[in-house]
């Protein structure tokens, strides 16, 4: 993933929106692929410790941030990283019933279309997200060969919106494309996860999105 669309932001960005964008981007990255040595290093650096501490200062995030930090601290061997990668694989890379594949289409009720039942993967939600991205002159990275309704894509797009659109647009996108299925996804991750990391990450994502949507709503009022 060499080209970074999110780096093409305008020069002056409201620092609060920048920080929101970064958090969405962080969550996107953690759902996009397994944690490797480099990511682990980034997430456990001194700077990152400060970030986690600040994030955990909010009571809604505290418990899950603590779990994530504790879990990251245990990843000190190759085997531990591989075990976490196996958790990731079982959750997000295979099947749908016994896993928690992160595609919005799986968690929304699909209405029958003119062509009959929509397929499970690359269905209506994928098409819709592709259109959203296109409107923003974006597309899914070719190195990320996943449907556009993958959670990582949706979160990355919100990260983009945080600095490229007004709050009303952000809120309506989040409500129409994220909060309407995220809790079902999080329940599935919690049910299926053998470890602790990804269920904590999923719960943290849900509480973050919820509180962010509330904040956007209050800003708009």
């Amino acid at each position: 993933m060499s080209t970074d669309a999110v780096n093409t932001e305008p020069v002056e960005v409201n620092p609060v929106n920048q920080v929101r964008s970064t958090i969405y981007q962080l969550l996107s990255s953690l759902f996009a692929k397994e944690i490797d040595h480099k990511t682990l290093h980034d997430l456990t650096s001194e700077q990152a410790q400060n970030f986690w501490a600040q994030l955990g200062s909010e009571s809604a995030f505290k418990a899950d941030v603590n779990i994530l930090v504790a879990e990251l601290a245990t990843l000190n061997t190759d085997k531990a990283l591989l075990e976490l990668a196996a958790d990731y694989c079982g959750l997000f890379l295979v099947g749908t019933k016994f896993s928690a594949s992160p595609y919005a289409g799986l968690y929304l009720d699909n209405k029958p279309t003119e062509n009959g039942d929509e397929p499970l993967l690359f269905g209506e939600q994928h098409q819709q997200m592709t259109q959203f991205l296109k409107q923003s002159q974006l597309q899914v990275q070719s190195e990320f060969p996943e449907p556009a309704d993958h959670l990582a894509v949706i979160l990355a797009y919100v990260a983009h919106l945080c600095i490229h659109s007004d709050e009303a647009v952000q809120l309506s996108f989040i409500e129409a494309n994220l909060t309407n299925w995220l809790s079902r996804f999080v329940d599935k991750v919690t049910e299926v996860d053998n470890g602790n990391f990804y269920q904590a990450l999923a719960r943290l994502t849900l509480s973050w999105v919820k509180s962010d949507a509330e904040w956007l709503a209050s800003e708009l009022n």
Partner: protein
Amino acid sequence: MNRRDFLKGLVGTSYVVLSGSSVLAPLNALAASGADASDGWLTTGSHMGAFKMKRKNGVISEVIPFDTDMYPTDMINGIKGLVYNESRIRYPMVRLDFLLKGHQSDTKQRGDFRFVRVTWDKALGLFKDSLDLIQTKYGPSGLHAGQTGWRATGQLHSCTSHMQRAVAMHGNFVKKVGDYSTGAGQTILPYVLGSTEVYAQGTSWSLILEHSKTIILWSNDPYKNLQVGWNAETHESYAYLAQLKEKVAKGEIRVISIDPVVSKTQQYLGCEHLYINPQTDVPFMLAIAHEMVEKNLLDNEFIEGYSLGFDKFLPYLQGQTDGVEKTPEWASKICGVSPEVIRDFAKVLTKDRTQILMGWCVQRQQHGEQPYWMSAVLATMIGQIGLPGGGISYGHHYSGIGVPSSGAAAPGAFPRNLDDGQKQLFDSTDFNGASSVIPVARWIDSILEPGKTIDANGSKITYPDIKMMVFSGNNPWNHHQDRNRMKEAFFKLECIVSIDMNWTAACRFSDIVLPACTTFERNDIDIYGSYANRGLLAMQKMVEPLFESLSDFEIFTRFAALLGEGKAQEYTRGMNEHQWLEMLYNDCKASNEGKFEMPSFEEFWKAGYVYFGEGKPWVRHQAFRDDPEINPLGTPSGLIEIFSRKIAHYEYDDCPGHPTWMEKVERSHGGPGSKKHPIWLQSCHPDKRLHSQMCESTEFRETYTVKGREPVYLNPEDAKKRGIKSGDIVRVFNDRGQLLAGAVVSDKFPQGIIRIQEGAWYGPVGKDGSKEGGAEIGALDSYGDPNTLTLDIGTSKLAQACSAYTCLVDYEKYQGKVPAVSSFSGPIEIAL
């Protein structure tokens, strides 16, 4: 804390949390310019027929039958789901414990344990390392890469050819002989009629319709089975079946279906049913022969002129060799057909022109050679072999046999074997005294009992000590018998590699899993109609390979590159996909020069097809009948062998020198084992799948499942006795295994018989229905794979083929914890 303050507090801490990247990129110019240029209708095909497919916004949106397909299968509704289903293998994956410990991994974890995603380079590297290790430590007898199956269609991308050519470039390996479909038939019939017959072109339907007065469908369901073909199926046979239906209605042709159940074909044609107890065709046939002799209904002249050994068979028929005269009364007690009906049937067969059409089911049982041999003897006694609309066929339900061949030359294919002079990385041919080729269905025996010597088709086979298996486009966890026994065998294997599109059970029981793209994600060409050879079909790529899947061509080109400098080039002969297709097409064009007009490759590709026209009607064995000396059969004598000296010489107790009735180890309706497990399990080819292909197509599967499970068809009285009604979940069991299936109570299924169609994806869960324990012996199959229950023995010392139809079970209403179906979700993790 105030939200704004909280967010401000994060400013400065968050910028450097992840120095990474985004899953988004700027829209590229091409995509920005508007609609995808490649959207629109394209031509392609599969085993299920030729189609037109619509691509919209880069996704397959519609599939409709090709213009020429007048009888498309409704499996066409499952095509889209083959591409976009939850079972797709999205990335190369390796079982975690194998990644950590390699050939010392805990093999008992196979089947429901943890995988991790790896790069293609890593996965192919591990594959090659394993092959190195096996060849170095054990030599070629340690590797079996010869279990191959129905693949996907396409002359270039055929997965079997790619895998075997590439693995052969590395080293030698154990291969199979025969197949699961027709193992006994294709072995016995060369002794009797001089060819496999099962895969031979048959008398044209038009001549059968014109000349036959009686047609016997012997355990044969062409209306069900002709939906699919080895190549893109034209479905032209259905036009003839429609004509036959009319003739049946008008009383012009009498069609009798000899079958334990009411077949789909019988229902379609509205023809007669002659019920017979399962596995008892041979006593029935012997009694017919006995009656023909008694009443002198046989064609002595034909027997005399065209066959050998009737005199050696007759004493057996009359009871002089074993003290049992094969009278209708004797047979009736076994086969359940009354002596009167048997006597009448002998008259029916011999009264007028009679075409016997055998299905393949009756040879997939213990002593499966016998009903085929005996049916050939009956046809010889009737004396109509080689006449239009008479004689016997073993293939009219398969791949359009009976539709006349156009006579055009078919295109070549990507080579399965090494090129002349190609050097292997490991060139040892030392199989440590073991056989390099084993009967297809005996590989589990071989893994479990290496070094054991068995009889097979006149030879001695010594089982190799197999340590590694490679499967490509092949799901033996569908077609092999007895899952618990397979698990025992797989515990002994050091490494298993599967290359497939979807997470079949074979993939779930593997160590290295490589994602191949589907037929619709690459360009190819196919023969339109396997036997009709009606033309060539362009298989135009519909969409780019999903996720990180690759075409078989690409997978094994990359693999070959690991074998050394220039090896990838050697593998592909220096040609890419387009160049291969052009060459295969142009070679075919050259072969047909002056006989069949073919346009340039570009024109062909644009049109999507080229037609060769219709062939001329033809009669099987007519040349032999015309002059058996000039056109002898391929038997040792050149004649039909009612008695085979060759087989007699083998001195097999389970396959003597002439057709013989032998009791089965398990048989319903009063036979051995029927007191304990009274129900015969029929596991025929499915109506809504091609073997296990398309079971993963979610929406289509849901059109026929019951509570998400494979249907089990039950006799009304049997079901009532067990308190079961349609829609209930049923546990089917015997001493070998247990499965759950969804009840469909139907009067098409007589007492003592159930049907579960093969190809239902194996989805083991714990014995008691809990999520954990699927890898264990005795696991409960949550979906309804009949081979959880079937018997894993050879048909006889002759063919050593599979005996899936020799299988007794019982069933009950399932009262336990109902598990979710685990077959389609890829590997399932269990808690440590």
